[in-house]
């Protein structure tokens, strides 16, 4: 896989922006941005949460109309009246937030709006089905084209989005954090498909907060900060640190600021928890002041264990104790009352009320603390919200703006804030830094670490191996619904965790 363009370098840009600006009310999301995408070249877009990356993409995709500047297609000014125009021009887009029709089948989702036709303009259902099957094969996943999209895990939702973008001969492939929910192997598979498209002459624009991926896939990078272009340069010769400095405008401190743990008494006890066909016989403890990571491949059942512990899903057997008290099964309310908090994986669906304001969302879970004789104290809600907004360096216009206005990563921060604000004694976080930029990632880690140092018990589910190794006092590894290893911090390394996660024998941890 060579990252260089085909011979005769520097072909003319297929798609370009020239001097583009875009505002939302008082927020200037893009200011005088120019960008060129060339055939056969992978281009990365870097920047912190809220820097304007998604806005830029939506401008290229015909979703937003720029206030100033032009979009150039093959060097000619083009006006896209909507996403359909951009698509017809050969631009395929994977948006940051899933855009699936829950009630329709996967096949229909992929071909909506451009189904293959047979006589009299009727849809050729068989062809749609077959083409979807072929796409799934190409992506190496086993999803039934006929099943409805409702209930798909986010990784699978993302796969459907990718399949959608690959389903037509795109000249330009734009991907807004496509890998955020994927495992290493799924990401590798995606990259090889993208590489093939690129060598066949497609222009690629790629966004990720995982800098390693940017260096792996791309040749050129454009960095945005606060809606302004900081630099547009070849990646060759650039170091990760330099890229980070362009993004955040300063040097970053230590990436995994782990404080020494002094574990206290047992805070969370899980015994023989079982959910038929999903996970079985899962037992572990988490002590006060300890960060325990739950590692494993996506689909190993980690999120499901978390959901069952918290009572969102009902377990078929087993017991959960918080601070010695047995928890009523299947009741999140009881879990919250006992001091448990869960930051779910699927934040858009499970974590936020999109139309409600930022302060309302942060206040949502803490309503009890904020209530005086049944009334919510607005002032208290606001003070608390602005405090957390500061601690997580949230980028927002006003606290009374709807959460839906925030950039993807900033929405994630709101979910985190919402649960941290409940001051739990046991915190379960599912993928705490997914979609969060490097600067804030370190901030979140520092926060988790200091909360643990203050006696919080943390159970952290993460597919980010460096994060697991950097943050955890102990690593629990799941494989196909079973807890297969428990590895103390001193012995945890990439090899031991991956060996256990992939079910290879001979892991150094004792089997649980």
């Amino acid at each position, binding site marked *: 896989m060579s990252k260089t363009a085909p011979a005769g370098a520097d072909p003319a840009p297929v798609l370009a922006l020239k001097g583009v600006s875009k505002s939302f009310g008082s927020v200037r999301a893009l200011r005088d941005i120019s960008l060129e995408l060339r055939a056969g070249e992978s281009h990365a877009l870097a920047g912190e949460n809220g820097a304007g990356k998604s806005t830029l993409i939506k401008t290229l*995709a015909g*979703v937003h109309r720029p206030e100033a500047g032009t979009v150039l297609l093959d060097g000619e000014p083009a006006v896209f009246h*909507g*996403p*359909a*125009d*951009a*698509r017809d021009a050969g631009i395929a*887009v994977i*948006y940051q937030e899933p*855009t*699936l*029709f*829950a*009630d*329709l*089948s996967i*096949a*229909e989702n992929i071909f*909506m*709006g*451009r*189904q293959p*036709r047979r006589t009299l*303009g*009727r*849809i050729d*259902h*068989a062809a*749609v*089905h077959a083409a979807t099957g072929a796409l799934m094969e190409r992506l190496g996943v086993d999803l*039934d*084209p*006929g*099943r*409805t999209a*409702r*209930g*798909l*895990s986010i990784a*699978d939702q993302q796969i459907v989005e990718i399949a959608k973008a690959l389903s037509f001969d795109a000249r330009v492939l734009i991907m807004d954090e496509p890998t955020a929910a994927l495992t290493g192997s799924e990401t590798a598979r995606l990259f090889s498909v993208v590489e093939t498209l690129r060598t066949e002459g497609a222009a690629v624009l790629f966004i990720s907060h995982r800098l390693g991926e940017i260096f792996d896939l791309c040749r050129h990078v454009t960095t945005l900060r606060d809606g302004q272009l900081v630099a547009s340069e070849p990646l060759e010769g650039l170091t990760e640190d330099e890229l980070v400095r362009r993004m955040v405008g300063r040097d970053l401190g230590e990436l995994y600021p782990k404080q020494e743990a002094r574990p206290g008494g047992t805070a969370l006890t899980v015994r023989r928890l079982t*959910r038929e*066909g*999903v996970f079985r016989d899962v037992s572990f403890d988490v002590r006060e002041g300890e960060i325990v990571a739950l590692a494993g491949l996506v*689909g190993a*059942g980690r999120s*499901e264990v978390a959901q069952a512990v918290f009572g969102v*899903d009902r377990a078929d057997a087993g017991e959960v104790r918080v601070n010695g008290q047995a928890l009523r099964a299947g009741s999140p309310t009881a879990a919250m009352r006992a001091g448990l908090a869960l930051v779910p994986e699927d934040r858009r669906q499970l974590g936020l009320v999109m139309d409600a304001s930022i302060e309302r969302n942060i206040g949502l879970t803490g309503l009890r603390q904020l209530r005086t004789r049944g009334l919510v104290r607005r002032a208290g809600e606001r003070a608390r919200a602005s405090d957390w907004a500061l601690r997580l360096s949230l980028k927002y216009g006003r606290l009374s703006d709807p959460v839906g206005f925030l950039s993807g990563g900033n929405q994630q921060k709101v979910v985190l804030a919402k649960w941290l604000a409940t001051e739990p004694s046991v915190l379960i976080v599912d993928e705490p830094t997914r979609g969060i930029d490097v600067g804030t990632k370190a901030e979140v880690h520092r926060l988790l670490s200091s909360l643990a140092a203050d006696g919080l018990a943390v159970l952290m589910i993460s597919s980010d191996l460096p994060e697991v190794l950097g943050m955890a006092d102990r690593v629990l590894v799941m494989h196909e619904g079973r807890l297969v290893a428990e590895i103390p911090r001193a012995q945890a390394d990439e090899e031991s965790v991956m060996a256990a996660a992939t079910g290879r024998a001979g892991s150094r941890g004792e089997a649980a």
Partner: protein
Amino acid sequence: MSATLRAPEPADTSQPSPAGAKGGSLAEKVLRLREFSIGAALVLLILATWLVNPSFLDDQGIKDLLLNASILVLLATGQSVVVLTRNIDLSVGSVVGLTAFACGSFVSGTDHSAVTVLLLGIALGTVCGLVSGALVSFGRVPALVVTLGMLYVIQGLDHAWAHGEQINAANVPDAVLTLGSGSVLGIPYLPILSAVVLAATAYFLRAYGSGRELYAIGSNPEAARLAGIPIRRRVLTAYAFSGAVAGLAGALWLARFGTVVADAANGWELTVVSAVVVGGIAITGGVGTVWGAALGALLLTTIGSALVVLKVSSFWEQAITGALLLAAISTDRVVRGRTTRALRKRSRQ
């Protein structure tokens, strides 16, 4: 004209599922279950009523049942298309009233043909639908507000025009009345017409891109926008269709009853919406089939007729319709939650 009215009625019931899925997905099975249970309830109800009063199922009884159901089935078909897009059309009852009266005034004392009346009804209904649709899609006014407003505006117009007068059957040309009372092979024209519209709509919704897009719009409007679906145009078309079908129903109303007062079909909108929802079309859009909606309409009609036969006060009809509506909406919610969880679980295996 009988020849043109007969064609495709029974053909399409056994087509493959919309997604062309083999075996059918869980959600589809749930939907079928819904249609099956309504069908079963219908059969039980008919049997029970027949046992109490055998005249319920004699030749005339069946004919009455079919005639009574056909206009509601027609309206439910039109309404379904609108509800699928996560909208609602509350003006249908008044459109039926207006077109029935307008067609009546137009043909009174003339010898216009049945086809002219049908075309006039459809045209008038389409205009009403286009007005509602334009306000909802391009004016961005909530559908509930627009169509409730339309309901009162059209009703007002109708009353002002009628001025307390009514259309008398004696003045309506025979050709038109024959449409309401005649039959081929013992099947009245009206239900045949309804079945044709129903089957055509079902086929369109499944086989055509624009039909599937209506489902997409109701399922996730934001995603539909990003997929480049012309949402406003589709919604406008859905309303125009609902209006056209209501206009057709108005013309048929005239043909069937001959005598028409200004507030014909007054209050039907809620029965129509109930039929659609009971039939499995989610009030939040994106789910259900017109076949289900038609079954819902059939069930509600049969309940009404059965109560008459059983000599139960007709007030009960409203209470039962309401209870069914509530039951349908709550099962939708519960079932949707359950299937989501079940599917989630399944996707892990």
